[in-house]
């Protein structure tokens, strides 16, 4: 075979190589099969143990207050729950539709569910689909209510924990929540359906606007 190849002139050599590559491509067929995925379990295990798979509610609250819009926040619950209340800047994507949802693989995706379990499972699904930056909110919406909307006064009265609580009071008010001052107050934390959404100062939204300059055309 190599003798035959060596006898060919340059152009024919190139043609031969091209045909071989083409035939191989034919055999490979369709490189991207949407139903099968390849994961690196060691990588993922490492990410999980390092905590690189999730973010805290306080971090997200910070980003929203600062108007950082470099992420896509997805609410995995059904639309009824979503309409009752959702974290500001969230999009409603029920878990069943998550895999078909239009998100580029280089975008930062943050997901949350009611308690956080579904979202941690969905994180694995996103990673298996090749999303480089995927995070779930640890504790889910429950944690958001507990820490952000209705933060409780600390049990001890050290200056640090009091300072922290004061900060959380401001955050809570920003999101329209109500901090719980005294620890003896055990009333049910009810989310008022028409909780006013805070005015978010956002920078340019992810995904580009219509006014953006034509960037990638010819």
């Amino acid at each position, binding site marked *: 075979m190599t003798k035959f190849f060596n006898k060919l002139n340059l152009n024919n050599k190139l043609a031969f190589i091209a045909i071989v*590559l083409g035939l191989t491509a034919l055999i490979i067929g369709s*490189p991207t099969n949407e139903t099968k995925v390849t994961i690196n379990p060691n990588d993922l295990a490492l990410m999980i143990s390092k905590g690189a798979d999730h973010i805290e509610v306080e971090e997200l609250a910070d980003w929203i207050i600062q108007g950082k819009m470099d992420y896509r926040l997805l609410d995995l619950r059904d639309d009824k729950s979503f309409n009752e209340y959702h974290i500001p800047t969230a999009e409603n994507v029920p878990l069943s539709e998550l895999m078909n949802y239009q998100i580029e693989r*280089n975008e930062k995706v943050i997901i949350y569910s009611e308690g956080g379990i579904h979202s941690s499972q969905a994180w694995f699904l996103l990673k298996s689909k090749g999303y480089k930056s995927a995070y779930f909110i640890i504790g889910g919406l429950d944690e958001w209510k507990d820490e952000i909307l209705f933060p409780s006064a600390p049990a001890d009265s050290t200056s640090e924990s009091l300072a922290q609580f004061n900060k959380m009071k401001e955050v809570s008010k920003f999101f329209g929540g109500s901090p719980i001052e005294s620890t003896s107050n055990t009333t049910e934390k009810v989310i008022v359906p028409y909780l006013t959404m805070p005015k978010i100062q956002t920078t340019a939204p992810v995904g580009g606007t219509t006014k953006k300059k034509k960037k*990638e055309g010819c």
Partner: protein
Amino acid sequence: MNAPFYKFNFFNDEVSLIIAFVIGIGFGFFLERAGFGSARKLAAQFYFRDMSVLKVMFSAIVTAMIGLFYLNWIGFIDLSLVYKGDTYLLPQIAGGMLLGIGFVVGGYCPGTSCVAVSTGRIDGIIYLVGVIAGIFFFGEIFPLLSGFFYSTNMGEITLPQLINLPYGLIVFLVVLMAISAFAGAEWAEKKFRNKKT
């Protein structure tokens, strides 16, 4: 998946402009290597005397196509992040026809005219002025054209998707088609080269 590097924020916009410049140098270099700074050589394609346009274009397309296919197969590049552009069937067909006619009238295409200008061709300069005039004219009558301009949008669609055949099969067919075209080109050149220019 690490590529396309820019889409994964390996570097910022400013650096991408430098990269654009460097890639452009490579582009212009190989265009001139092939002799495409000369309108006569380019036009000779359409009189079957010199089939370099076909050879260069399809070699380039096949090379990049095969490269993309295999890089995608080994998971190095994420094709979903490569800009493809929507297909607007009718405007592209009409534009292609105009471009083809303009090619023989003008003797260049916008890319090769840049190479012509930088190697001293005066007709290249005039050609570029014409291109700018053509774009300006288009811009001015754009409100009248916008209906047609945005018509027949098929979205981002590739040949494998259109005829519902595997990507690899299409790659193979394109390679076959290109090789056949090359064989035909060699034959045509031999046959017509004897004609006195």
